[in-house]
């Protein structure tokens, strides 16, 4: 039967060990200090982050200290790179040039001098573009690698605007004064205004404006000559010249043409029509006309002074 009174557990205690001589465990002074050192945040961080990272760097450095290993790894990497680059997906097979005439296309092909097929990684498009644009006949170029291994070069050619005769040769220049080609290389350039003289390529716009203004002269206009790199002469087919001033030459030319319309001055015996001084029109007569003028003046003088020359 269970007793009604609760007992406080067994009244038998296990006998304590006879030799209770064992001392309480205590950490030695050094283990205590090591634990405190370990719990120091800086030391802890140093040991957990600093030492492994140092060891990693040291081992990697040790490995790469050997020249042969370095070159082997470098060569391996290069080999992999080459394998990837030489895959057919990256190969450029065809060079196509758009927007240029045949001689320019030939010149571009020659300038690019590509040894196709080659990898697209080896193509430095920026440098190639510079090479194409360095050609005189090319105003701008646009290079792109299209799918299917096609290198497309889209070219804007320079359009010749003037024939420029220099002391050495005759060449075509465009509206900005850039050299396009020698006259001999482009026999099919069509009718273009002609200019001459040093520095004419720097004022192409003025030359074109003058040429437009001189349209009433028609076939009689031979060309324009830049004089002293500062002003223009209009040269007509029979060797006569209209000397234009430095400032506002187009207006001066208009005045000369208006004068011509009114008086047909160019139809007379005039060698030069000098408009350099805007206030005063000067005319150089031909020697024959001059002589005639003198004769007429002498005659007029005799008439006024009586019958001296009779």
């Amino acid at each position, binding site marked *: 039967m269970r007793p009604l*009174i609760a*007992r*406080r557990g067994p*009244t*038998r*205690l*296990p*006998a*304590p060990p*006879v030799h*209770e001589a064992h001392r*309480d*465990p*205590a*950490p030695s*002074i050094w*283990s*205590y*200090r090591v*634990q*405190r050192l370990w*719990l*120091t*945040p800086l030391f802890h961080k140093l040991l957990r982050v600093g030492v492994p990272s140092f060891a990693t760097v040291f081992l990697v450095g040790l490995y790469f200290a050997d020249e042969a290993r370095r070159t082997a790894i470098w060569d391996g990497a290069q080999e992999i790179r080459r394998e990837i680059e030489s895959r057919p997906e990256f190969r450029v097979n065809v060079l196509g040039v758009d927007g240029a005439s045949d001689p320019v296309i030939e010149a571009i092909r020659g300038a690019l001098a590509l040894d196709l097929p080659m990898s697209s990684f080896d193509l430095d498009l920026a440098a190639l573009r510079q090479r194409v644009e360095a050609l005189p006949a090319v105003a701008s170029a646009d290079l792109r690698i299209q799918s299917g291994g096609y290198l497309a070069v889209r070219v804007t050619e320079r359009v010749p605007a003037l024939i420029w005769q220099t002391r050495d040769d005759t060449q075509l220049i465009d509206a900005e004064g850039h050299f396009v080609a020698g006259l001999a290389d482009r026999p099919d350039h069509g009718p273009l205004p002609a200019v001459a003289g040093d520095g004419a390529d720097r004022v192409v716009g003025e030359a074109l404006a003058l040429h437009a203004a001189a349209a009433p002269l028609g076939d009689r206009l031979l060309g324009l000559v830049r004089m002293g790199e500062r002003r223009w002469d209009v040269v007509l087919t029979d060797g006569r010249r209209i000397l234009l001033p430095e400032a506002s030459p187009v207006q001066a030319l208009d005045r000369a043409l208006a004068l011509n319309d009114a008086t047909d001055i160019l139809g007379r015996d005039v060698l030069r029509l000098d408009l350099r001084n805007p206030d005063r029109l000067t005319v150089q007569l031909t020697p024959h006309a001059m002589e005639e003028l003198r004769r007429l003046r002498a005659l007029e003088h005799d008439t006024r002074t009586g019958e001296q020359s009779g």
Partner: protein
Amino acid sequence: MSILYQSQRAMRAKRQDAMRRGVIAVLDIGTHKLSCLILKFDQTNASAPAEGIGAMAGQANFRIIGAATTRSRGVRFGEIDSVQETERAIRTAVQAAQKMAQVRVDHVIVALAGARPRSYGLDGEMTLTSGTVTDGCVAEVLAACDVPDLGHGREVLHAQPVNFSLDHRTGLTDPRGHVGNRLSVDMHLLTIEAHAIETLLHCVKRCDLELAGLASAPYVAGVSSLVEDEQELGAACIDMGGGTTSLSIFIKKHMIYADTVRMGGDHVTGDISQGLQIPMNHAERIKTRFGGVMATGMDDREIIELESETGDWHHDRRTVTRAELIGVMRPRVEEILEEVRGRLEAAGFEHLPSQRIVLTGGASQIPGLDGLASRILGNQVRLGRPLRVQGLPQSTCGPAFSSCVGLALFAAYPQDEWWDFETPADRLPSRSLKRAVKWFRDNW
């Protein structure tokens, strides 16, 4: 006195430094066990009590992140007896607590139970020159207390202003800002033997720790186990430890008396060991398991077997009834309590408005102790357990840890002490540069 002042201020500076860092350890060096708690202060209010009156400068929140207890070695009557042994015990406890907290502590606050504390009530008064009480006036009136002859080789452990009076008004806790003519103060001074502090300092230093504060164990036990109204209305806390039974009297939230009876639970164990002729550790086990102080008829029938292995058959198979065990324990417990009553009477405890007595400490766990104590000490006896503190492990919630928990509270909410105030200029050594600076600051 000035050396003490300097050293206490140095300890206070260390404590504030530790609180700024956020981690401090408290160490309760008892006769029976040595326990260490590691406190972590919240950063929200890490600014330690400012200059001047500490308790009014805000409180710091803390939680306990490490706790360890080990059997104490080399401590007798709450004093360090064998330095090496105690040092090893401190190392054990601190290492275990550090391991639990995973943080290294450098500063430690220690509670001392023994070393014959002696309480003095001092009073000082001064005439206010400016009419309004300032920090400087508080410091001056504290310095005006005439210190009695403490005796040779004694050091001041606590010097707490308990009560301020201004003219006819008394009971001021903080006189600053009040207007009056005469300011007087009552101060409670607690001294202990100097060699105990020196030995303790040596021990702590040998453990690579720095002493950041010292407290008296009865004081901190009272702080943790008396509830607020008991502290306010007057109560005595009796901390029954292993080697000493210490008592402290509180009123108006200040300790006004502390004393120690150099007897405790270990003496009860010794009596059992002698009376029943069994080894000490066996006696300790029997005491904790079957011990009591009030015998009933039931206890005559409860038979405890005292086994041993000496080889003597009769000796190895002795039995004892629980009533006999109680008969051995009770006289010693009564002796302790009567001694405590004597000390309380000497302190004038019966003149206090409330005569609450709170028993705490490891030895207060003897069953039936409250009944015996109320017979001897008076009716208003209760058993006290320490305050609940955040993060405290369950195993350290018992009454045996009341002084440990109280020490943690003391570290977080220190009371104003005499050395928390700037020393007045005329007490500084003459020709001191500090004095010149202070004169300038006061007069310009």
